[in-house]
């Protein structure tokens, strides 16, 4: 019991340490705006703090937290003032790529594709974006995503499929375009 108390006593601190990073990553992917993502991480944990006595362990804490964060992100995205995405750590062209050296091509290609994926991700409908981020990046199951998004598992499967398919088509098209450009140069 004492061990339990020790663990529980540190719970809020531990929860923040454990989940602030993933939550920040998720919100940044959703918003492409690090400053707002940080604000919403705070807001999410503030709501956790306020609602602590109403929390019932019907779902994992992480699912509950992602549900709060998703609602905050969707609200933010629907605000009229929501902006054109500004420079982010993953913004396209934000930082110069390192010089290509032996063995680095695959890494560079991955970064280029990652930037393209981030841009395409931001063009997806909000719920598709959230479903794909939660599934592909955060590793939630469809059941957990369904709870976070307050939709059915079948709807999650469809959302993720449409999101991933759209990105796959666009990225494959970009890749083919860049390969064609390389061929024309050489």
């Amino acid at each position, binding site marked *: *019991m004492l*061990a*339990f*108390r*020790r*663990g*529980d*006593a*540190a*719970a*809020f*601190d*531990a929860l*923040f340490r*454990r989940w*602030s*990073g993933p939550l*920040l*990553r998720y919100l*940044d*992917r959703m918003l492409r705006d690090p400053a707002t*993502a*940080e604000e919403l991480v*705070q807001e999410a944990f*503030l709501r956790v*703090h306020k609602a*602590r*006595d109403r*929390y*019932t*362990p019907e779902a*994992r*804490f992480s699912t509950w937290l992602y549900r709060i964060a998703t609602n905050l992100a969707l609200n933010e995205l629907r605000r009229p003032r929501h902006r054109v995405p500004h420079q982010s*750590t*993953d913004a396209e062209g934000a930082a110069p790529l390192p010089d290509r050296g032996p063995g680095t091509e695959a890494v560079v290609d*991955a970064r280029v*594709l*990652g*930037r393209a*994926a*981030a841009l395409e*991700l931001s063009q997806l409908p909000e719920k598709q974006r959230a479903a*794909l*981020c939660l*599934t*592909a*990046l955060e590793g939630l*199951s*469809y059941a957990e995503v369904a709870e976070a998004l307050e939709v059915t598992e079948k709807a999650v*499967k469809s959302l*993720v*499929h449409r999101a*991933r*398919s*759209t*990105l*796959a*088509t666009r*990225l*494959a098209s970009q890749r083919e375009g860049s390969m064609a450009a390389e061929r024309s140069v050489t």
Partner: protein
Amino acid sequence: MTEIPARCIEWDEDLSALVDEELSAEREAELRAHIDSCERCTRRLQELCDVDLSLASLPALEVPGDLAARLAARIEVSQPAASVAEVSAAMPSRPRTAPPAPRRRATAVRLAAMAAAAAALLLAVWVAVRGPEAPEPVPPLARAAAPEPRDAATPLEEIAPEPEASSTQQQLGRDEPAPQEQPTAEPPIQLAEAGLPELADLHEEDVAMLIALEAIELEAAEDFDVIANLELLERLLDAEAAGDAG
């Protein structure tokens, strides 16, 4: 979007579910059999996997070092009016309109706020397990294990620097359980200020303070210890949920 061949339509959505490992074993076997004989779905599966690889290659933001302190400051200013009134009534000499705490106090404020929140979580579970009539004396074992006041008092004193704060140490040092009707002095005030007026209602001040102090002591714990504790908490919560459902 590229047109999907008729023979692949029924599998298309499942390709993405295969990436997510969300198919039943039977459906996965059927799909894999189709993929083995379908060049288009083989290529499409690779493209879908590439999406995840591309997204995973994005650099993740680092959590700013002061984010926890900023959160603690927001928690502090967002306390319910009731707790503010309670604090004001008990400590009329303390102006509620005082300027914000300086940065150097942020860590202590954060620790106390987080510890208090953790105490609330524990009490919610503890009361739920024991039933609504929960108020009981603190188990002697827990009291005996209370951290030394010398280690734990400093952050609390920074939050409530009034001389009366020393009564907290005296109270924690007692061996006998706290009387239920004891007039609420410093401990409930501090707890209310940290966001726990409901603890005072439950007459569990001693428990909460003890837990809070343990949390502060645990602040220095390694991450793996904290995560282990978190997992323990989640297991217990899951077990409780299963018990409630059963």
